[in-house]
């Protein structure tokens, strides 16, 4: 390899890097605000759906289920607290299931919504089904467990997707509610980071 080759190779790579970097940063500059807005919108829509009666939903702070950043919110109507919403993650079959859970002031589950996940299409993605999520309404902490087969008191597992059902119920929702109970009852309101880690399994 001659000196000329070395110069040419170096120039080749430097120029490709420079032009590539330039194009990427231009596209990023255009796309990033829109991506941020999309995420915000999905979250806002979820909060509205979970607490349709509330006239304001304010962020209270953050916590870290499975070392992932998650938020929790307080829902108010005419200045009165009517419930809380917590974001939680459940370790599923092939992904962490990002779930929002709304509870009333007695920490009874009102509604849940699965925001994103990567479970098996056709089986695990049944956690998106309305009938599955509707089961959570009115459940207290003791009844957040998965039963295979029909049940009215607890949560009925999706057939063929017990792991995903468990992840939502016994991991995401249960730990989310537990966290809320602990945090709100301790009175540690505000943006403080709480140190509750969900147990695995």
């Amino acid at each position, binding site marked *: 390899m001659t000196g000329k080759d070395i110069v040419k190779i170096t120039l080749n790579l430097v120029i490709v890097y420079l032009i590539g970097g330039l194009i990427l940063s231009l596209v990023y500059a255009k796309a990033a605000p829109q*991506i941020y807005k999309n995420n915000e919108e999905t979250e806002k829509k979820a909060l509205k759906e979970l607490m349709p009666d509330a006239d304001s939903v304010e962020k209270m702070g953050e916590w870290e289920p499975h070392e992932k950043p998650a938020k929790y919110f307080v829902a108010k109507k005419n200045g009165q607290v009517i419930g809380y919403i917590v974001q939680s993650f459940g370790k599923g079959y092939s992904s962490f299931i990002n779930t929002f859970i709304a509870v009333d002031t007695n920490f009874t589950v009102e509604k849940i919504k699965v925001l994103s996940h990567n479970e098996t299409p056709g089986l695990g993605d049944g956690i998106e089904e309305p009938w599955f999520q509707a089961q959570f309404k009115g459940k207290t902490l003791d009844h957040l467990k998965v039963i295979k087969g029909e049940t009215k008191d607890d949560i009925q597992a999706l057939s063929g997707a017990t792991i995903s059902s468990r992840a939502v119920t016994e991991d995401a929702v249960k730990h989310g509610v537990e966290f809320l109970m602990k945090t709100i009852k301790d009175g540690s309101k505000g943006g403080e980071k709480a140190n509750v880690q969900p147990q695995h399994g």
Partner: protein
Amino acid sequence: MSSHSTVSLKDQVLNGIIKENTIFKLALSLCPSIAVTNSLKNGIFMGGAVLFVQVMVNTTISLMRNVIHPKVRLPIFMLVISGWVTVTQMLMAALAPEVNAKVGLYIALIVAFASILARAEMFASKNSLLPSMADGLGMGIGFLFALTTISFFRELVGKGSLTVPTGLATDHVFTFINTKPVLLMILPAGGFFAVGILMAGFNWINARAAAKAAAKTAPAAH
């Protein structure tokens, strides 16, 4: 024009769609074609992303072909490919967030698609701009066509519905049967079946067309 390719632009496009169809003929890039094709919408978007990347990569490489040093050509191809894939990823996240949530993971994988690197190395780096763009267009459309047929078939048979995109962020779901008639088809294993069945169909049609063409020319020759 010091063109390496002697065929017309139209034939160059058709080559990628029929003669060298990435999935049905070369059996390359099967991973995404199985992973994302459980709904028509996802299949179309994935195919569209590959089409975009293939055309952009071929165009870029063709423009650069005379200045690339042969010793670093592969790293440069990879840089160009990953650059365009990242652009696609960002555009997708911005314009079609819902699809991105489902397909996004596989968009990143386009970097490792054998078909894209192969076209850059075998075609675009040796041919001038227009044939390279035509080649990229053909390969891309061929891939889009394959993914669309596979996902159409899988969603229809597996779920009894069709999710037709009506815009970047909107779609319409046509439900024909409200149960899941052949659940297997939308599971990963069903992807292999679908690809296999459609590949057989594609080749059968092609073989028949070739036989017909041969029959037509044979009497004329005598």
